[in-house]
C-alpha cells in the first residue's frame, strides 16, 4: 500500500526515542495516522508541528497496518502563527477539534478544503479570522451531520428577528417565540445569519459558545481525546480578552 497526498498535521506524539506517530488530515484519505521515523529528531521536528501543510507519503505492507509517513514541509503555518497568541490558539484549537471529531481514514474533501482556507486566513493574518473561525466551526458541525438550522424560527417559521438557538434541536428561535424560555435557549449572534455584519468581541465569544455547545454534546462527548475542549477554552479566553 502506497499513496501520496497533501495534508495538514493535526497531531504528533512521541513514539520511543526518536520517532513520532503523526496524525495528518489528507484530502483524499481523510484523517490518517502513521509513524514518522526520526520525527522528533532535529531535522524533522519543525516539519511535524501542528497545523503545518505537508506533502505526505504513506507506505505500509497491508492497508490495515499503521504504516510509515514520509513528510515534506509545504507551508509552515505553525511558525507563521507562533508570535500571535490568539492565532496560535485558533490553530491549535482547530487541529485538536478535527483530531477529535473526524473518523480515521474517511475522506472528507469539503472539510479538508474548508480547513485549508481557515489555516490560510490565520497564516496571512486576515482581519476577520475570528469571524471565519466561528463560521468554520458551524460548517464543520454541518459536515458531521449536526448542523444548526438558522434559516427560520423553529416555532413560528419566521425568518426575521432570530435571536436564540434551541439547545435540543439546534434550530433558531425568534425573540418573540423565545421570550418565555430565553434562560434555557442559547444566544444566536447576528453575524451567523447575516454575512455582512461585523461582530463585536462578545458576539464572537457567543458564537464560539454556541458551536462549542453542540461540539461538546455531539462530538467531544464521544471522543477519546480530551484536549479539544481545553484548546477551545483557551481560544475563547484569548478572544474575550482581545
Amino acid at each position: 500500500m502506497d499513496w501520496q497526498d497533501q495534508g495538514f498535521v493535526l497531531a504528533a506524539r512521541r513514539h520511543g526515542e526518536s520517532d513520532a506517530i503523526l496524525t495528518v488530515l489528507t484530502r483524499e484519505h481523510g484523517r490518517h495516522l502513521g509513524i514518522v521515523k526520526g520525527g522528533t529528531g532535529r531535522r524533522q521536528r519543525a516539519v511535524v508541528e501542528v497545523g503545518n501543510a505537508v506533502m505526505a507519503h504513506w507506505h505500509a505492507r497491508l492497508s490495515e497496518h499503521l504504516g510509515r509517513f514520509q513528510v515534506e514541509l509545504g507551508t509552515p503555518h505553525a511558525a507563521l502563527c507562533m508570535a500571535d497568541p490568539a492565532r496560535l490558539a485558533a490553530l491549535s484549537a482547530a487541529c485538536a477539534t478535527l483530531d477529535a471529531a473526524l473518523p480515521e481514514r474517511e475522506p472528507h474533501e469539503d472539510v479538508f478544503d474548508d480547513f485549508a482556507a481557515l489555516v490560510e486566513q490565520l497564516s496571512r493574518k486576515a482581519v476577520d479570522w475570528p469571524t471565519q473561525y466561528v463560521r468554520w466551526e458551524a460548517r464543520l458541525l454541518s459536515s458531521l451531520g449536526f448542523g444548526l438550522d438558522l434559516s427560520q424560527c423553529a416555532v413560528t417559521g419566521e425568518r426575521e428577528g432570530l435571536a436564540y438557538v434551541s439547545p435540543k434541536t439546534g434550530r433558531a428561535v425568534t425573540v418573540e417565540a423565545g421570550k418565555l424560555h430565553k434562560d434555557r435557549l442559547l444566544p444566536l449572534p447576528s453575524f451567523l445569519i447575516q454575512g455582512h455584519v461585523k461582530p463585536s468581541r462578545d458576539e464572537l465569544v457567543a458564537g464560539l459558545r454556541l458551536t462549542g455547545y453542540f461540539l461538546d454534546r455531539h462530538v467531544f462527548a464521544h471522543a477519546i481525546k480530551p484536549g479539544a475542549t481545553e484548546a477551545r477554552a483557551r481560544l475563547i479566553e484569548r478572544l474575550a480578552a482581545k
Partner: protein
Amino acid sequence: MAAPEIDRLIQVLSRLPGFGPRSARRAALSLIKRKESALLPLIDALQGAADHVRNCSQCGNLDGTDPCGICTDERRDAATLCVVADVADLWALERTGAYKGRYHVLGGVLSALDGIGPEQLNLGSLFRRIEGGGVKEVVLALGATVDGQTTAHFLSDRLQPFGLAVSRLAHGVPVGGELDYLDDGTLIQALQARQSV
C-alpha cells in the same frame, strides 16, 4: 538461557531511554563482568540518588538538597527568574554558563493533544515566588513549538498583573547554521525577530 536475576536486570535496563533489548543485554553483561569496577559503584550511585535526590520545593529542580543549590546560591541574581519546561532544559542553560539568575521548572508545557492544562504544571509555586517579591524579570525559556509558545503566551498573560519585565528566548538561525539548510519555519521566525545592526 540466563538466570532470572540477569533477565530482570536486562528487563530493567531495557526500559531506560537509549536502551533497547540488545543494548540492555550488552550493558548487563558488561556490568556483571566488571562487578567491582562497574556494578558495585553503579549500585552505590543508584542508591545515593534514590535516597537523596528530590525536587526542590521552590523551583522544581532536581538536587540532593531542598532548596536546591541554585536557589540557595547567594551569588545568583534573585531578581531574574528563568522559566523552563523541564530539568533537562535547566541543565542545558546551565551548561552555557551565560545565565546567572534563578530558575523555575514547570514540569511540562500546556498540550491540547495530551490533555495537559495549567493545573498539571508547577504554576502555583511560580506565582507564590513572584508574590514573595524580589523578582524583576521573568525569562520564558520554552520550546519553539506550538505547545511551548502556547505556554509562553499563557504565562505572559498571567504575569502581566505583577508588572514585571517578561522576555522570551529568541528564535532563529542557530550558530553555525547556513540559511540554505534551514527549514522554512525557522527562517520565518528569524526574519520576524530580525535586529538592527
